[in-house]
């Protein structure tokens, strides 16, 4: 069974079932935005949503994560987390799944990061394919993440009265097997899936003015571009863009001593290359002092450096950085201006 289907009226029944299997996280509404939350009431799960404020990254790369237990006297260290719990991420957009694939690449690259890998082993991903644009900020088509490209266990596609479920792993198969309300698919459902994908082509258009390889070339040549000065002038260095990014993983390490003043925990906490002192050293030199340099660094960490290192773009097209920017710095506009400037300079 590679594809299965479930009637929409049975979805909540399935969610109840999943909730019993493992800790279940899914998107739900929060005021006029959306968030991933542990599912308490399955009726709150919302599958039509604009990308959540934070990507599900908070579950596999927590904002504040225990690295180590220590005692000062006598000198002792111990694992901070003895057991990681199974969890299911439900209703993940394809852009966020791409984000998880990026994190995999980073944390599996030696030296491996056991904290991330332990969590990742316990994670099951159930995605949902977007059939329409979330809003004008997304650039998922240019990043080719508007369609499923692997990295999930199950993928739901809305074909009207039913969801088609693409089964992509044994882990996923175990969550649909033996349930009376999840059926094998027939010809009608498969042709409905094709129709849905065909209709999508009319809705989704490339957001960048140039194909990705040209964008990458623009980055190769655009290090000294005026675009960065412009972006830097507007940036307020709040770090929103990196906090909400599904592929930003920079961190700081922090010790917390308990009231005994002898025992404590070492954490890693999210940090941002947009912060003032991020690249400062003891000698006083700050290697990315200007906001323009810091913003440029962020963009290059999406469109250039990881491509050189891993052959993978670290922009997923989710649009969160633009959506959450207090200074209205827009990723699509920035990339397009850079591409245009580089093209102009080559004439």
């Amino acid at each position, binding site marked *: 069974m590679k594809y299965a289907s479930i009637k929409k009226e049975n979805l909540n029944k399935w969610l109840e079932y999943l909730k019993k299997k493992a800790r279940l996280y899914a998107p739900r509404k929060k005021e006029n935005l959306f968030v991933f939350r542990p599912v308490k009431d399955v009726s709150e799960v919302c599958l039509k949503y604009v990308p959540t404020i934070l990507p599900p990254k908070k579950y596999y790369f927590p904002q504040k994560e225990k690295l180590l237990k220590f*005692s000062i006297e006598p000198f002792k260290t111990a694992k901070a987390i003895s057991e990681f719990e199974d969890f299911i991420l439900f209703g993940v957009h394809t852009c966020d799944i791409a984000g998880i694939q990026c994190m995999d690449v980073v944390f599996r690259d030696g030296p491996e990061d056991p904290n991330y890998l332990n969590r990742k082993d316990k994670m099951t991903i159930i995605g949902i394919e977007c059939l329409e644009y979330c809003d004008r900020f997304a650039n998922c088509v240019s990043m080719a993440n508007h369609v499923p490209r692997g990295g999930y266990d199950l993928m739901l596609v809305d074909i009207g009265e039913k969801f088609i479920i693409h089964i992509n792993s044994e882990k996923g198969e175990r969550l649909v097997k033996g349930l009376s309300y999840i059926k094998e698919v027939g010809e009608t459902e498969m042709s409905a899936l094709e129709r849905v994908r065909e209709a999508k082509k009319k809705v989704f258009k490339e957001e960048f003015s140039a194909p990705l390889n040209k964008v990458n070339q623009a980055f190769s040549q655009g290090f000294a571009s005026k675009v960065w000065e412009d972006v830097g002038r507007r940036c307020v260095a709040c770090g929103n863009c990196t906090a909400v990014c599904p592929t930003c993983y920079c961190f700081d390490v922090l010790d917390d001593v308990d009231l005994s003043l002898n025992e404590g925990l*070492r954490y890693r906490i999210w940090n941002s290359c947009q912060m003032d002192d991020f690249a400062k050293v003891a000698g006083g030199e700050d290697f990315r002092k200007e906001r323009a340099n810091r913003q440029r660094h962020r963009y290059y960490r999406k469109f250039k450096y990881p491509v050189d290192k891993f052959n993978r773009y670290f922009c997923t097209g989710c649009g969160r950085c633009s959506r959450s920017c207090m200074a209205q710095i827009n990723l699509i506009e920035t990339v397009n201006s850079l591409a245009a400037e580089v093209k102009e300079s080559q004439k």
Partner: protein
Amino acid sequence: MIEREILLEKMKTSPYRPIKARIVEARMLTDKEKFFRIELEGGIDLRHQPGQFVMVSLFGYGEAPISICSSPTDKGYFELTVRNVGTLTDKLHRLGEGDVLGIRGPFGRGFPVDNMFGFDLVIAAGGLGLVPLRSLIRYIMYNRNDFGNVQILLGCKTPKDLLFGQETKEWMRRAEIKFNCTVDRADPDWKGNVGLITSLIPGVDLNPTRTYGVVVGPPVMYRFVLSELLKKNIPDHQILVSLERRMRCGLGKCGHCQIEGVYVCQCGPVFDYAQLKNFKGECHEKAALP
């Protein structure tokens, strides 16, 4: 040996887990820099390369990357020299013989001593730059016959800032190396050179094709010393530097030490000038050079 395997296994369960180490000797070198001799639990060797660094852990204060200043040929212990600049280093300065700290590492790429075999060496140290270079200099002293002529140039602000006073005096006396020291500002007792370290280079006699130039110091020093060495026609890949960045993990993840696409903790801290040239603008050490 078995002890080491156990400790390595311990580190493998989490690369973030430091191992226990004890300070066996500590003394102030200047009024800002303190020297530590450290032994790892079980008396095992750190097995580092000259130029590598360790992450020093003081629980409750955090971790900081510190250059190793002893040579791997100094067995059974390793040495660090630390300037008091922040919370962690201030606490470290208050530690002495018998006190315990945590160590992770060694990390990074050190000096390519195997490639330097048989070459003449010009080593230029500015201020604290002598700390990582001391690991190389001691290595060279120990394997003196493996290298050609060795010239050491040292620059610091005032005679009071001179590190490893006794040791440098000994270097000065040894016939098989040339040692030159200069200070920016002299005091009445100073009998040596006065002026910037760059002023020592034109006088250096060298055969560029068979010479390695090694430079470690503050960013501003690189710009001038590197251009002097380039003027001498030393090939790019024979000019070595070690770059200071504030790593938080040492594992190529946390992002703090990144210069453009390069993680200094993994690909450095030692780079050659050919690599330095590839940086577009975030490497201040090569700013305004060709």
